[in-house]
Each structure stands twice: as C-alpha cells, then as structure tokens.
C-alpha cells in the first residue's frame, strides 16, 4: 500500500477519491459522536465542562499523530530523497499546528473554570504541548525562510526528526511529573477508567478527527504536488 502510494501518479489517482471519502466518514463520525456527547449526563465533578473533552482530547490525539506523520515523512524524504514524502511533510505541518492550537485553546477554556487558571507554566503536559505547537510553527517558518527549496527541506526535516523526542515527553509527562493535568484515563494498562457514556462519544469523535486529518492531509499533499508541477512547468517555459 505505502509502496504503491509512493508513486506520485498512483497517489494522485488514489487521493482523488480517498480524500472526499474520508471527509464524508469524518463528518458522520464527528456529528454522531458530538450528538451522543451533548446528550450525555453532566459529570458529577466537572458538570457541563466535561463536554469540552469531546473536542479537546481528539484534537490533542491528532496533533501528536500529525507530528508522528511529519517525522515519518521527513525521515523518508531525508534518507530516500523521496519528493512525494517531502510534499507530504510540508503539507502536514500547518494541519498539525492547527490541531495543536485547537487542543491548547479548548484545554485553556476547560482549565479556567476547573483549575481557576487559563494556563499553568509549571504543568509539564501543557508546556510540552506548547513545545509541539512551536515545533510545527518552527518547521513552517524554517521552510519559508530559506529560498532554496531543497536546502529548506533538509533543514526542516532535521528539525522535525529532533522534535520527535517531544512525543514520548507529552505522552508520559503526566506519569513522570506531578502535574495539574489528569493522568492517563483512556490508553492505559488495565483499561479505560472513563465511564462508557463518555468513552463512546470520545472514541467516535477521535476517529472522526483522525479521518478528517487524513482527508485534509491527502488534499493538501495533492495541492503541494500541483504546486511543484506548476513550478517545474514555469521553469521549463523560462528555459525554452
């Protein structure tokens, strides 16, 4: 599958139908999950603010997924000099930055009524997710700041690979340090501690966000392939 998609022509043929199909799946899953989430009873401790979890946690999951994809695409591009992998890496960074921003903003809106603070600098989970956002923004800025696209890609790929170290820090920050942020309650040994009435909507919205990310990534990579084709044709026209 991956080997097939590595061929740009096959990728363009596949993504032409896969991107809208994933978009439809995403809309159904997100709509279904949010409807169940809004109909769920208020939490006995958090009250109605528990509903922020249905948009906050999936955004945080997908922000980490996006960075893992950025790291994988950067690795393939750096090691194998694969142009489509570089296009995919460039395409995923703005999506990752936006999902991370959504996680930070929705988390802050939850933190104000529950913790009494919009932001806590001493919290390792919050700060490591902020670092994730800065890594995405740094990647975008680095690519934009170097005129030579090949050199810009190499520099940004190295930054992306170094930044991978932040993913386990985010994941285990709630175990390694004492933080205000809740500990692991879903992906933990021994099973989820979340009540099923909240777990099902959360998983549906999480799957929907992942599908939406897939659809947007495919569509954005297609746009990047078109942009490069345009640059190549412009150069050919200038030389002829």
């Amino acid at each position, binding site marked *: 599958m991956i080997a097939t998609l590595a061929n740009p022509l096959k990728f363009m043929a596949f993504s032409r139908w896969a991107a809208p199909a994933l978009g439809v799946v995403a809309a159904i899953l997100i709509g279904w999950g949010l409807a169940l989430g809004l109909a769920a009873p208020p939490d006995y401790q958090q009250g109605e603010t528990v509903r922020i979890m249905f948009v906050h946690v999936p955004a945080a999951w997908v922000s980490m997924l996006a960075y893992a994809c950025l790291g994988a695409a950067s690795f393939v591009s750096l090691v194998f000099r694969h142009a489509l992998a570089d296009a995919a890496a460039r395409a995923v960074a703005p999506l990752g930055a936006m999902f991370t921003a959504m996680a930070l903003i929705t988390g802050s809106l939850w933190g104000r009524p529950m913790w009494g603070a919009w932001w806590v600098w001493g919290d390792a989970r919050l700060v490591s997710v902020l670092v994730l956002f800065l890594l995405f923004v740094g990647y975008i800025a680095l690519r934009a700041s170097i005129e030579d696209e090949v050199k810009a890609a190499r520099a940004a790929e190295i930054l992306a690979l170094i930044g991978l170290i932040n993913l386990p820090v985010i994941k285990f920050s709630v175990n390694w340090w004492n933080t205000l942020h809740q500990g692991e309650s879903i992906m933990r040994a021994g099973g989820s501690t979340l009540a099923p009435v909240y777990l099902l909507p959360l998983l549906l919205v999480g799957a929907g966000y992942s599908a*939406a990310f897939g659809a947007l990534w495919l569509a954005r990579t297609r746009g*990047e392939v078109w942009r490069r084709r345009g640059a190549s044709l412009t150069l050919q026209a200038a030389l002829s």
Partner: protein
Amino acid sequence: MTGAALDMGRYAASVWPAYAASAAGFAWMIIDTLVRARRARRAVETLESDRRARDPKT
C-alpha cells in the same frame, strides 16, 4: 437533540467557545486546503495549455 442537552448552564461561556474554536479551526483547514489545491491545479492547467499552444507536439 433537545434544548436541555444544549443548555450548558453557568459553564456555557467555556463550553461553547471551545466548540466554536474547534469549528473555526476546521473551517480554516478546509478552506485553506481547498483554495491552495484549486489555485495550484488551475496554474498547472494554464501552464500546460500555454505549452501546448507553443508546441502542439507536447
């Protein structure tokens, strides 16, 4: 969905902005992605038609 399910009580000022921020994030990602892809594809189509006009063999 009933109106009661949408009543967030005293936490409405936190819950609805969180949903609005998420919706705005998705709206930006969808619009920016589609506009960029469409613009790039149209540019390629224009360049290819110019090339065909210059050299019909290509």
